[in-house]
């Protein structure tokens, strides 16, 4: 075990939710930093003590700025990263116990929609090939069966008429159509959970809403659980029941979407909301309040609360000394900030 880890106080309560599809318990994902000639040079603490439970059919948004650890968290849930410590339990099974076939099978149950649809699709394969391959890998032997499945998912993502698209290569499709193919691929093996990592940030405004509505329709009709990763707070309420706000490797506020947008508690959440514009002419008349500085290094994060060097409500002697635990000032609304002690 990593020595630094031993000293950590595991102050998060055990989550015990029988119907939870996914349970994350005190998860850490640290990347080792090596410097030439010096060997070990510390860790990038990309995910540092994250806990939550996700019920079957539930949608949650993870909101945070670039580099805060969103993708690292998701890759761990997808079984692509090995946790440094902590647990990921999916459908009653602990991920750390899975190897080879078991892990492969697990990955079938979780669909992945990534940010850049063009980068996600192999350029030299046509749509039919792109969608057929995962089915072959998962052991679907009959070609008819495969084609039937492909037709089904393609009509679910509204690529009509299906025949027009099967022989096309990714570069022949618009960004929105490419993203539909990525979603179709994620749906192929009837997953229980979809992880969508910034699924619309590369798309034009007029298409974004269309793709988000499509994802929500699929979520509802299939009873899927969805983790929607985004930096755009304005899209969240159309999509997710709950929001987790992530800052420098941890979830600093977790609440119902209405609760969080209506009554944000953490100073960082306040800053994010204040920085989000709606298109209104009067915006040009005022300056925005933005906390100074930039997100911290994840190698040597600030002591105590990681937001303290930027926080307008910083309390010396407390915030810079002790890491704030998850507090629950109103039922179901968690915040890691000493203001709510």
């Amino acid at each position: 075990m990593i020595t630094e880890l031993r000293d950590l106080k595991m102050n998060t309560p055990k989550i015990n939710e029988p119907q939870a599809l996914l349970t994350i318990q005190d998860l850490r994902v640290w990347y080792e930093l090596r410097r030439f000639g010096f060997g070990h040079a510390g860790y990038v603490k990309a995910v540092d003590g994250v806990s939550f439970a996700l019920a079957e059919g539930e949608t949650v948004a993870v909101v945070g700025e670039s580099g805060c650890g969103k993708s690292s968290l998701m890759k761990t849930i997808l079984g692509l990263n090995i946790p440094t410590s902590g647990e990921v339990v999916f459908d009653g099974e602990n991920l750390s116990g899975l190897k080879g076939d078991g892990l492969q099978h697990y990955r079938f149950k979780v669909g992945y929609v990534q940010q850049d649809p063009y980068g996600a699709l192999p350029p030299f394969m046509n749509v039919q090939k792109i969608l057929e391959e995962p089915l072959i890998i998962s052991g679907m032997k009959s070609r008819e069966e495969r084609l039937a499945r492909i037709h089904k998912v393609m009509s679910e993502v509204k690529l009509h008429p299906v025949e027009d698209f099967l022989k096309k290569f990714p570069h022949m499709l618009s960004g929105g159509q490419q993203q539909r193919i990525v979603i179709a691929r994620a749906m192929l093996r009837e997953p229980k959970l979809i992880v969508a990592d910034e699924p619309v940030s590369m798309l034009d405004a007029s298409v974004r809403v269309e793709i988000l509505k499509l994802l929500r329709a699929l979520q509802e009709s299939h009873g899927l659980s969805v983790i929607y990763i985004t930096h755009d707070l304005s899209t969240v309420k159309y999509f997710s029941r709950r929001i987790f706000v992530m800052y420098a490797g941890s979830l600093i506020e977790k609440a119902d979407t209405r609760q969080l947008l209506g009554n944000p508690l953490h100073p960082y959440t306040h800053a994010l909301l204040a920085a989000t514009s709606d298109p209104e002419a009067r915006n040009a008349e005022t300056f925005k309040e933005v906390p100074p500085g930039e997100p911290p290094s994840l190698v040597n994060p600030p002591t105590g609360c990681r937001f303290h060097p930027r926080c307008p409500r910083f309390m010396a002697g407390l915030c810079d000394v002790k890491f704030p635990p998850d507090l629950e000032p109103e039922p179901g609304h968690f915040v890691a900030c000493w203001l709510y002690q």
Partner: protein
Amino acid sequence: MNTMSHKLLRIEDLVLHFKTRLGTVQAVDGVDFELDTNRAVVILGESGCGKSSLAKAILRLLPRNVQKYSGEVYLQGTDVMQFDEEQFRHNVRWAAISLVPQAAMNALNPVIKVGEQVAEPAIVHLGVKREAALNLARRMFQHVGVPEDFLERYPFELSGGMRQRVALAMALVTSPSLIVLDEPTSALDLLTQANIMNVLKRIKQELGTSFILITHDIATSSELADEVAIMYAGQIVEVGHARDFFPAPLHPYAQMLMASVPRLRSESDPMFITGQPPSLVNLPTGCRFKARCPFRFDKCEREPLMFGKNSRKVKCWLYE
């Protein structure tokens, strides 16, 4: 150049077409608009509608495969399209109009200190001595909120937001009256974006600069906009004051585009526009939006004119 009575910038029938294997790309196809001193116009439109090409046409930064480049660009009353390249370089580009190109923050030279890079346009285009230019660079760093000791740093030592500020400082160092910003915040984080918009507002207040802000980020654009121009398939289909446009856009495309913006502070359900913009190689006859327009009627088979007066104009037969 000329007196106060002229508009800072007036563009008439600006055209920029490219030659390709597949045919002529009509990227900018008859654009008109005008801009006063110390005002900001935002040019909004979807990917590929010709926004960056418009910026290039205004600054005469042309690729090799130009098929057609024509129109009038009046800068304080003088048609600079009549200038030869030498005159244009001397009097217009950098001296009067600077460009912050798309992805500028990633285009800084990695092996030259950022202070030197910011000073360079002043040396090259204004003939300022190196020492004086570095002093100008230092002043520009203050305007954009970069600490002075960053003058000595290399681009890789700066965050994305800081590099974008440096790119802005570089555009400012020649004291242009107009800065063209091509997607200045789209690669940046929310808080960094808000910071950069604050910087732009401050520059506008303190230096009296005008801006052409090109973006597809409608919500963020409202932070700077005095005027709005909506671009669709190589043309401007609506222009107007921001305070008129944002609450009530007129062109059907503009209305649908605005309705597609998710809003944090409203319960309205965002809509989307079905279909795709036409290919700029193969443009339809008549109104270019007609294939997606719910209001289309028989007249739309003919190209609509710009209707309306003064500050508010719409290219749509509904407003005849």
